[in-house]
């Protein structure tokens, strides 16, 4: 996939960094002049994926989370990926079911993937046990009717 603008970041898997990652992704998306609702959706979806990497992927232990964000050639679709190199998910289909959680005692709701799905236009999860998990999301930020063309960049 070719992007007309992109960034990638790698950050310590600590929950104190969740707000930072949300803000960084949102700051990049601002160039598309998104609506407040679109920015809210993206922040929420990113937060779910990052929380999962910290809580489930690394189970609170040290690790790195890699987040990449690319602006597609249409000038209005954002692709976001969140990757960890943690324990992985044995059964992705089951994991993605609403209310499914492996940490009920932790008061987790099992709604993380459901929220990601609802707040983005496309969600793809790939995972391998003991290798890690990659969550890819797409979102069209077109509601304000603004798009960027390559000449402006």
């Amino acid at each position, binding site marked *: 996939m070719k992007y007309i603008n992109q960034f990638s970041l790698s950050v310590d898997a600590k929950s104190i960094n969740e707000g930072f990652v949300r803000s960084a992704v949102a700051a990049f998306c601002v160039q598309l002049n998104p609506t407040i609702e679109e920015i809210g959706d993206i922040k929420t979806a990113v*937060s779910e994926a990052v929380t999962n990497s910290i809580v489930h992927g690394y189970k609170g232990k040290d690790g790195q989370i890699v987040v990449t964000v690319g602006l597609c050639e249409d000038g209005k679709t954002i692709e976001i990926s969140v990757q960890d190199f943690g324990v992985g998910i044995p059964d992705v289909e089951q994991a993605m079911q609403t209310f499914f959680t492996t940490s009920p005692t932790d008061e987790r709701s099992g709604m993380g993937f459901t929220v990601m799905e609802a707040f983005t236009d496309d969600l793809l999860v790939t995972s391998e046990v003991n290798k890690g998990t990659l969550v890819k999301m797409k979102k069209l930020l077109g509601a304000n009717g603004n798009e960027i063309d390559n000449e402006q960049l």
Partner: protein
Amino acid sequence: MEILYSLEKSTLTIFLIGELDEFSAVNAKQKLDQIISDNKPQTILFDLSRLSFMDSTGIGVLIGRYKTAKALNGKVYVKNISRSIDKIFLMAGLYDIMPKISYKEQKNEIH
């Protein structure tokens, strides 16, 4: 996240201020349970007007506090919910256990 509260008769209004995510959840749970068990309110009203962010971790936090309140025979309501947090409430069916209430309803029904 910051948590403020006020007690009026037997109604405890709790203001959740800032961002409720995995980072702030641990402290929030502890503090909320403390406030609830200290005050043993008949009604808890979460005012979310100053909650700028909440993800699904927040669902777990709120359901947990609903259980704390119920164990003390209290009822839980929410008010002043922003659009994106409203979407999460709807998705999780949270309004079934903690109905949304307007200012008017609050005056008539709760007290």
